[in-house]
């Protein structure tokens, strides 16, 4: 049971997000990296690599993954999981795109 209703926040217009590139938004004191994948889908994860806190928004984006710019950990943007041989995970946020606007659920 969810006790709190998720809050949807509009963070960007789709056109503000270049393909395969991350952008940062700060929400409720959290730093979130927002990505538009080449498939057109938008993903949002916390902007902190579980390794040493690298800013994931600056990583190279390939398909559904981002490579951390610090030490090259590979992170799945759909489920937040770090890919082997490394281990760990980042928080992911639900994203909705409606009429060209991007919303994140908190």
């Amino acid at each position, binding site marked *: 049971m969810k006790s709190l209703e998720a809050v949807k926040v509009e963070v960007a217009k789709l056109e503000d997000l270049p*393909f395969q590139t991350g952008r940062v938004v700060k929400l409720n004191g959290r730093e979130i990296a927002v990505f538009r994948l080449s498939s057109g889908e938008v993903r949002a994860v916390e902007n902190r690599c579980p390794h040493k806190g690298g800013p994931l928004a600056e990583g190279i984006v390939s398909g559904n993954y981002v490579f951390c710019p610090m030490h090259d950990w590979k992170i799945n943007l759909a489920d937040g999981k770090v890919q082997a041989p490394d281990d760990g995970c980042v928080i992911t946020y639900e994203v909705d795109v409606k009429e060209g606007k991007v919303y994140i659920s908190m």
Partner: protein
Amino acid sequence: MNLRKLVLVGNGMAGVRCIEEILKLAPNRFEIAIFGSEPHPNYNRILLSSVLAGDADIRDIVLNDWNWYEQNGIKLHTGQTVTKIDTEKHLVYTDGGIVESYDDLILATGSLPFMLSLPGADKEGVIAFRDIKDCETMIEASRKYKKAIVIGGGLLGLEAARGLLNLSMEVSVVHIFDNLMERQLDPVASKMLQRELEAQGMRFLMEKHSEEILGDRRVTGLRFKDGTVEEADLIIMAVGIKPNVALAKENGIEVNRGIVVNDFLETSVPNVYAVGECAEHRGMVYGLVAPLFEQGQVLAKRICKRETDPYEGSIVYTKLKVSGVDVFSAGEFMDSPDTRAIRVHDEFAGIYKKILVRDNKVVGAVLFGDTSDSTRILQMMKNETNVMEIKRVSVLENPDSAGVSGMAAVAAMSDEEIICGCNGVSKGTIVQAIQEKGLCSVEDIKGCTGASRSCGGCKQLVAQVLESVLGDKAQIAAQKEPICSCTSLSREEVLAEIKEKHLTTVKEVMYVLGWNQEEGCSKCRPALNYYLNMLWPEEHEDERASRFVNERLHANIQKDGTYSVVPRMYGGVTSPSELKRIAEVAEKYQVPMVKVTGGQRIDLLGVKKEDLPKIWAELDMPSGFAYGKALRTVKTCVGSDFCRFGTQNSIQMGIDIEKKFERINTPAKFKMAVSGCPRNCAESGIKDLGVVGIDGGWEIYVGGNGGVHLRAGDLLCKVKTEEEVMEWTGAFMQYYRENANYGERTSYWVERVGLANIQKVLEDPETRRQLNERIDVALSVLKDPWKEIVQNEEVRAVYEELPVLA
């Protein structure tokens, strides 16, 4: 000369393979004609799964191209289906009106996919998985639609499902039994497989009986007998195949389930033979290539009137070609009262191995998670080895040491042992080819012997044989290293393809060269972007998304996520007013640290990303490229203008070099220095290129490095004038740009290719001129990135955080 006329019906894997054998045995005996319903030359049907999974391009799976037919004098009729055989007059007729006479006729019509006769099965979007057309239909559908159902949880169904996942479709696999691949796996392996595939994102609907395909014109879903419905925009039926025998049957050739053949592949009609999936031999019809190739070998000898052993049937074995899942099954796989098993089941490592033994002989095996023993087990089955004579613990080996034990196992193999099951290539054949033809890569061996040409499952073994033969020299072979794990192509091969096919974007390269990761990785993306920039300086548009953060943002990322800014100061020379400006900017933006770098420049450390464009604007100085794989700094000593030892004006030389070559990208960072005399105060001896003034001239050192790989530079040449310093510097840089691997510093590169080789190339004045010409073109299109960003609002926005709008 009177040639016999040989006609082949079916331009597929078994038939053409048999023709290849015939050409080897008797190249001048036949005049050959081949008919094929499909519009393509002979291709590797097995690899359709890989095409679907994105690991290969359709062009890559052609086995024999149009040239091959022509070179061998074969008349090829594609897009022609043979509809009638006149066995009296020895004639075949096609639907396109072609008539051809024969002395010998081979039928290799393959099989047809079995289609469930469900209501609605004729709707658009319901297909089989058998040929290139099906494969293209799926790829096409994945662009428009989301949801696919695969009916059939066998080998083919699972490979199709995996491919559709790679095409970003949602995939449900429907299976009537409660075990996947029930014809190859026991329940334990089957459940392990299901779990693994679920983890990869496949959904399974087990024990479901399909009843009706829903939709108007195009399929929209599938209804089951239990009343439930699953939505779908695409349905693949992969429930089995049936031998394609209509042609034989209608023309009086004996047919049972398949076209009946004897041990020499002869049908009931004289001079008519059958081979492949359409043939039935001793009651068996095979649906895998290895047996079909064995049949082809016997038939080839028979037709060429050579002595041959009869074909007595084959042991069947299968591997699932799904990445991340190793599954192997051979012979019997279900325990029975008269078999005993050697079993390993490690649920932690996800490994399961079962070897079934009857009368002390191996009769079958199932391997899951680690299939490195498969060749050895097959061999034991074929040789009927007595298991009492072998060390049974060897199957318990730790898979981590598989590489090592694999080498030992390969070395211990006898020459007759088969390495490539699909193509029946023995170890001896491979060893002989390596030794006699001087082969040094798996690719060469493939081309020469056919080993690993089909399913590719034996690639590792082939590599091990290569290594065991070449020993020390294997290093030569090892040099052919793929640029990253997304491809098997080396830098040289990629560059050659880019040039030949004139590929101009990273995406295009990956697509055309069959990258196994659609968008590559952090290793190949920047490399390809560099190679494209280098090869097509005027044409290729730099791809920001493929640049590492430092080069994308034109500043150095620091460990806390802030950036550092190093403005260009040519030759390390600045002016009071420039210094004032730097100081003011540093104060205004509260730059936490101002530091002089090892390359004589000023570094503003700890800058916030969003401040970068503002700082650049106010500094109004060019970017120092302290972050790029590019010319960094040209360090100088004070030189003849001031120094009492100085013989040459090192400052001016340094400034000239830096002004000329600034902004040029190189495979790795490139540092330079100019010293006025051999005292070398600018440390020119440990730079990628260092210039040292001497009496009446200059020395140029290359390949030096002061970093981890500490290395003194080698003397490249001595020259007299400043112009010559420029000329050699440009030539060396461009030669390095064109020939080093991306990321390879000159210190490694010079060692790898050898100074003497570089000297030999650069000694030729014409070559130097051409290299300089090319680097000049590359330089002519470069602009200062800071200035561009400051002036371009759109790009500048990327440096800012997204404002929260609501």
